[in-house]
């Protein structure tokens, strides 16, 4: 048989012939520099290969060899706190070898081979085990206990296992397989990225992911194990929301995928996360975070792979029984990478030039989210939440990527440029956004915060909706046409918007609000509203109510430290007092 050689180079796409043992989605080494590529199409003896590194300098006749294995990630202790590119090459190690820019053909270990980890066996010799069972644990960071699991496909009895210091490649256990084979297990595993990791059964999500972002937690919550999307034009706040969730969401593990976006945004995370403290544990946020960075100027094909790399690592931690949240910013760049490869393959284009399989790929990706019972006899539960940013051209929501995404995700945070222009952040439009999870959380709310929560939220939403209708009237005939009751609705709606929904990500206190404090904030706004309604009946004028200085205290509630939130509740007494005074004055005068 001939040796594989390149016959065509067009950007990131290379066509080769006679690659020995060529299989779809296997990884190949391209050219003398052994650039990494993946077979994406086979026709007779010709293979189309997407190359994950710069292809300049490649030419016809250059060699190409299959590795015989699909594109896979390495899994094991050492993942947390890493920053990888789209095909899981550690960018810090690449910098050590290649300097400040990304050079082609650089090979470095994905997971550190030298580092020793303290492995604590939790199973003993003689124990019966099956895939997913936890053999032992490694304290990977102060926040993450890395569970070493029996790999998929293995069942049998532990012949040998021991605690101690090991590198990821050293043998920690030997299994006598049911199939009669002997398996020597290390802490390092591999898994092909385009294939979801198995679990026992999927379950409906019932717990909200608490993000500390008021508009999200109160009005449009996403479930642990759920899916959400954030479409919006540039500058509307997609990335800030994703960063905020990565910082403050109560997930155990965060996988942040920077897919085809700005380099400095990754640097921002890298520099900020080690400094920021997790509000629950007090430990640096980086201690639970893995970053995937394939920025816009890095090779396009690796952008396509980056979301799979990220979600596969996420599934691995989910399988340990953790709640994992994946942020993908932006899924549009992933879709565009697909479009670019599809175009170069001269496939029949669908809408806007995207390949016909676009929606299927998007659906498959979000399907990897879920609350699951993990493999293994202990029936532990894990959850994988996926939150994808979408960047439609011109902010136009009819964009095929937005539409395909909306068909599969359960939560829609609709970012609006008009809100962003007036610096109402997060610029989530409260009238058009939605969540399909609210009813699933009834139990949780009852237990964690009080059953009146849902009613309070519904009432607030009604006020906001009424405001939108009233605004129409004001626009046509002016504010004077409104009844006092309606004017009060307008005042309260404004308070909900400005004092609750508006949240400054860059303010040290405002950036995160506990669920409890959110309850108190809504509560005080609605308390004021009810009290004002009563005052209106007692002939107090809306004008007098709207200039009450106590409203400034309500507005400042967001800046009250989490430790002093009782100050918010104390406002109620004061509110009562000022209204009583008003009522007395108006009945006297």
């Amino acid at each position: 048989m001939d040796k594989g050689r390149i016959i065509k180079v067009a950007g990131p796409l290379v066509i080769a012939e006679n690659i020995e043992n060529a299989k779809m989605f296997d990884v190949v080494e391209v050219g003398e520099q052994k650039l990494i590529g993946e077979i994406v199409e086979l026709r007779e003896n010709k293979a189309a290969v997407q190359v994950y590194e710069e292809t300049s300098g490649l030419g016809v006749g250059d060699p190409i060899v299959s590795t015989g294995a699909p594109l896979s990630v390495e899994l094991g202790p050492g993942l947390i706190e890493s920053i990888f590119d789209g095909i899981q090459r550690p960018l810090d190690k690449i910098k050590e070898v290649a300097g400040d820019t990304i050079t082609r053909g650089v090979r470095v270990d994905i997971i550190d081979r030298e580092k020793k980890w303290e492995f604590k066996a939790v199973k003993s010799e003689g124990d019966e085990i099956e895939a997913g069972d936890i053999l032992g644990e490694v304290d990977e960071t102060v926040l993450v206990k890395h569970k070493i699991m029996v790999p998929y496909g293995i069942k049998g009895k532990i012949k040998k296992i021991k605690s101690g210091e090991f590198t990821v490649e050293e043998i920690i256990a030997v299994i006598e397989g049911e199939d009669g084979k002997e398996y020597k297990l290390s802490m390092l595993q591999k898994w092909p990225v385009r294939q979801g990791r198995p679990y026992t059964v999927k379950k409906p999500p019932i717990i909200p992911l608490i993000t500390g972002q008021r508009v999200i937690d109160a009005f449009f919550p996403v479930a642990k194990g759920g899916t959400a999307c954030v479409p919006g034009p540039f500058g509307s706040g997609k990335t800030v929301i994703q960063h905020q969730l990565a910082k403050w969401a109560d997930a155990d593990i965060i996988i942040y995928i920077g897919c085809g976006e700005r380099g400095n945004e990754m640097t921002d995370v890298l520099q900020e996360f080690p400094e920021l403290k997790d509000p629950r544990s007090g430990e640096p946020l980086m201690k639970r975070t893995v970053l995937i960075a394939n920025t816009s100027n890095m090779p396009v094909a690796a952008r396509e792979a980056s979301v799979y790399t990220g979600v596969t690592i996420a599934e691995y931690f989910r399988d340990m029984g953790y709640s994992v949240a994946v942020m993908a910013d932006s899924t549009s760049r992933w879709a565009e990478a697909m479009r670019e490869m599809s175009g170069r393959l001269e496939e029949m284009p669908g809408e806007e030039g995207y390949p016909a399989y676009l929606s299927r790929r998007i659906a498959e990706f979000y399907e990897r989210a879920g609350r699951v019972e993990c493999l293994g006899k202990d029936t532990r539960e894990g959850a994988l939440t996926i939150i994808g940013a979408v960047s439609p051209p011109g902010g136009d929501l009819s964009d095929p990527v937005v539409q395909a995404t909306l068909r599969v995700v359960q939560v829609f945070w609709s970012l609006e440029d008009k809100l962003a222009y007036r610096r109402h952040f997060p610029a989530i439009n409260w009238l058009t956004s939605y969540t399909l999870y609210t009813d699933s959380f009834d139990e949780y709310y009852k237990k964690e915060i009080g059953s009146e929560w849902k009613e309070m939220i519904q009432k607030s939403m009604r006020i906001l909706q009424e405001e939108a209708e009233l605004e129409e009237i004001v626009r046509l005939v002016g504010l004077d046409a409104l009844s006092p009751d309606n004017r009060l609705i307008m005042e309260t709606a404004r308070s909900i918007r400005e004092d609750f929904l508006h949240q400054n990500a860059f303010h040290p206190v405002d950036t995160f609000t506990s669920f409890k404090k959110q309850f108190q904030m809504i509560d005080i706004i609605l308390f004021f509203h009810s009290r004002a309604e009563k005052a209106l009946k007692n002939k107090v004028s809306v004008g007098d109510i709207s200039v009450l200085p106590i409203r400034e205290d309500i507005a400042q509630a967001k800046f009250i430290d989490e430790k002093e939130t009782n100050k918010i509740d104390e406002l109620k007494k004061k509110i009562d007092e000022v209204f009583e005074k008003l009522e007395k004055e108006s009945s006297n005068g």
Partner: protein
Amino acid sequence: MAKEYYTVSEIIGPLMLVENVEGAKYEELVEIELANGEVRNGRVLEVNYDKALVQLFQEPRGLDVDSVKVRFLGRGVEIGLSPDILGRVFDGQGKPIDDGPEIIPEIKRDINGSAINPYARDYPAEFIQTGFSTIDGLNTLVRGQKLPIFSGSGLPHNQMAAQIARQAKVLGKEERFAVVFAAMGITFGEANFFMDDFRRTGALERTVLFINLADDPAVERIATPRMALTVAEYLAFDMDMHVLVILTDMTNYCEALREVSAARKEIPGRRGYPGYLYTDLSMIYERAGRIKGKKGSITQIPVLTMPEDDKTHPIPDLTGYITEGQIVFSRSLHRKGIYPPVDVLQSLSRLKDKGIGEGKTREDHSDIFNQLFAAYARGLEARELQVILGEAALSDIDKIYFKFAEEFENRYIQQGEDEDRSITFTLDLGWELLSKIPRMELKRIRPEYLKKYLPKFLKEEKK
């Protein structure tokens, strides 16, 4: 000696097909020799068996299929660099056009550069004072940022870009500073405006210019920004200088790219621009930044004219998706005679948050700009209401905001073409304008700052 081919089979627009080629490499530099001895260049866009598709860097005029000789040079497109490059003027292809001597290169670099490892980047956080309130106060520029101007035809983007180049400084520091200027398809008059401005202010000797004019062949300008950025990288990361790169007009660049794509019969994306426009632009814009352990920096101010003033047109749209904010011009402000006609609501600096505040500008800065934005937005709504219903329909508070918007445009946005405002002046001006709004409305400002700053301006008001 590279092998020579006489096997050109097609020349279509900016593309040339060479057959029976051996060992041509993707992205390789190509030399094309005409019968009269003239030499032009191109680069390999695609290799397919023994065929090489070449993109010409100069116009195809005068080329023929029979007599041209093609050589593949075995390397990418490079530019020669040395410290002597400062103060020089080149054409869009990097040839000197200022009667100066040829540059004797100390080093040659591929103009495509290579992607900065995100791990090697240092986050831009150093405040640059441009002297414009609309930038310093509301859309703060920091060193290493890429902040484009979204303009429209006939709007004063060149004046603003030149004024930024003139006034930009980092407070309290004397550092080596350079300007790299790349003109793509602008008019002779516009190019002269910049040259005169640089000369007048003595900036020319620390400036490098690449000039591709409107009547120069469009394909020539595809390499221009890449040359300019290669020079900028050399000055910033080899010579430790702080470099401001002005790229104007990116719209012309994108059109040249579209021309090549159309000639290749690629499936067009939105409005005929190629699907890879985003990636192509990012390879230019992402060459701004700072690198850990390096002294210099590259700050980019690309200028583009929005076709039909449409911000959703692919060129501004994709640019905005890559750059770290945008300064958007408004034709209606321009018509009102306001310079610079910056639509502050649509403008944005994404990196401002780490470049402002205590120790950088002033502690109250972020609260002030949040409040100014909110107030101006409210004022514009009041203005809209006033247009529909008349002034009588405005509530008292609306009237206050209405007046605020007028004053804000006339005093905060508007400034002179030689007016270099300090950041303190800009911040105080913000307070002064806000002091006319009832205190209870100033929800975006922390109470302690209200207490500290507001009284001063309230008093001034009473005098």
